[in-house]
């Protein structure tokens, strides 16, 4: 091994092979997936996000939410994700077709958020959770995102703004979510990987033979 070109060519061949195997080949299969038309509802899955939810995805990225939260549900038998109620089925590649960037996360300090829009659809809950998680869940380690809110002292007899969070959030103050907070909550509400797919049907419950069957995608 006294030839520099050998090192170069060997490294290049190894990297090109891994690139082909891990990126090019999967791109030709899962990279070309299209949204599925669900016959029962007539809607496409996954649906494109609304403007506000799309903006919220960027807030989610900028705040680094994926440092503590994943968006991937493992199949039954690989961890307790489904038993914890984080999803009715495992997540598959098709669930992320509308995401940019894809924020699947790698570490869970908080719960998985794949289906948070279904598990907790209440916008006020999410806003309060962002403002001060410990109001709702004493002992929570989630940081406060107070900078996503305008906090103003309430004068005596002054009625708080309609957009303000409930008075108990910060007694004596009105807490008004900024557009970033509203967008982030719209994004969280849009997170729902709960449509049974051909590649990911709902798992069959042991005690229930009449399992939910995935609707066949329209060809």
């Amino acid at each position: 091994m006294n030839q520099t070109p050998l090192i170069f060519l060997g490294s290049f061949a190894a990297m090109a092979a891994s690139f082909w195997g891990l990126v090019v080949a999967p791109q030709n299969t899962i990279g070309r997936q299209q949204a599925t038309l669900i016959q029962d509802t007539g809607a496409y899955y996954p649906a494109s996000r609304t403007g506000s939810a799309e903006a919220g995805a960027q807030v989610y990225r900028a705040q680094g939410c994926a440092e503590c939260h994943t968006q991937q549900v493992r199949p039954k038998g690989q961890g307790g994700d489904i038993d914890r109620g984080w999803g009715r089925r495992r997540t598959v590649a098709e669930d992320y077709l509308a995401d940019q960037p894809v924020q699947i996360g790698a570490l869970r300090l908080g719960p998985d958020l794949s289906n948070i829009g279904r598990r907790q659809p209440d916008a006020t809950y999410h806003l309060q959770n962002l403002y001060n998680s410990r109001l709702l869940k004493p002992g929570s380690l989630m940081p406060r995102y107070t900078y996503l809110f305008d906090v103003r002292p309430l004068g005596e007899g002054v009625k708080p703004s309609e957009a303000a969070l409930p008075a108990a959030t910060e007694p004596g103050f009105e807490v008004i979510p900024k557009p970033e907070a509203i967008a982030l909550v719209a994004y969280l509400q849009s997170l729902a990987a709960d449509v049974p797919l051909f590649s990911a049907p709902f798992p069959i419950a042991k005690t229930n033979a009449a399992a939910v069957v995935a609707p066949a995608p329209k060809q």
Partner: protein
Amino acid sequence: MASTSQQSSATGLSDEQINRSCRAAVGILLIGAATWAVIGLLLGLLSSIKMHVPGLWDLCPWVSYGRVRPAFFTAIIFGFLSQIGLASVLWMIARLGRVLLAMPALAVGGAVLWNVAVLVGVLQIMGGMSTGFPLMEMPRHAASLLLGGYTLVALSAFVTHRARVERNLYISHWFLISALFAFPWLMSVGYMLAVVEPLRGVMQSVAGAYFANGVLHLWIAALALGAAYYLLPKCAGVPTHSRQTAAFGFWALVICANWSATSQLIGGPLPRWIISAGISAKWLLLLSAAAYAANYLQTTHKAKSGTQREPAHAFVFFGSLCYCIWTLLEILGTLPSVSPRLTFTLYHQGLLHLALFGFAGMILSGAAYHISSQVFDASIVKGGFIRGHFFLGVFGAGLIAFAYVLGGYAQGATYNDPAVPMTDAVRGVVKFIGMASLGYLLLLLSQLFFLTALVRGVLGATAQERAAFCAWCCGVPDAGNKSRAQA
């Protein structure tokens, strides 16, 4: 160790002349690395404290946990480890090739640009401009600057390598040259496919994993192993035991490292075969670690009893130990019987810290001391700073890895048990995170010793140049250093 007055029979160049040609570029890279290590660990300590004191400075978005944590990894990987790696590349290629560093001004420009890029990247991440992909959070503008800095440094290194007089390639050459080739490949592939022209859906995560895994194995680990294979015979006083074993380990690393990328995505929303391919490759990386371990043990076994031991030896020893433990624990984490418990837990954070601070951090720090003692001031390795750096570094890296690995194992059990309320499961990891915070503090202190030792050595050795520079700038000699320069 080669004497600094040794003359090359082929060129007539002395070690001293070669060292001097590298001085400016190596100085900027090493001081930059030590500075980024301190900055990075301040961010790491802050992020760790914020994990168990979530209300700390929560009014300031710039220091929110989700921004500080990726800024910390960026500062450590690209600011600290990569810069020592680049300094090692420049100096070792010049020394092993018995040739002066070519185009040193280009290397200096590249080193400055690299530091600017890391600064811009860290500030952009803290300002909320992260890309959102693990270990690839640096936004594209900063990444472009980084690639520009790399290009300048690499150009100098390649021209030096082409002009080398000693035509034999040493084991270090293989790893360093391969790393130089891998970096632009990973940067261009990763950023093009995940950020600039992103692939559709979850393929972005695959591209991100390809980049993160490649940077860890084919950039940072390859640089560290290149430095280790240089330092090992220096420390032992005998040549490396087996060139063939090293070649086997090298090719095992180069061929398998990138394939192992998808082992990070166990349980992820991908077809099973993609993840299985990654796990298989991860297992094969054991060959690379085993080859290195065999060479290390055989070489040190043959070490001459009366050899003057290099101070870098302790760093190489601990780094090598961590390399083997890291590889074994990485493989353990892919076992079907334990991976459901360990996936998405602190366990993998522990392994990342073991790789960055235990393995690469220690070996590259040893290389930094060795290079500084040659290029700047031999007395740099004689102070108490190096001992302080080593022991604090060992305890710090060990404590963080231990806390996260153990914490991850405990966390996996509670997170997978639906009977345990989520808040209780989260609170259960606090004690481990607290232990890790202490580890960060020890590591921060160790890096302060590192920075102090390097700055003292560099300032002491460059008094003459600085005095001349001050005189050139202001027309007045630097009064503070005048006497030292004359001395």
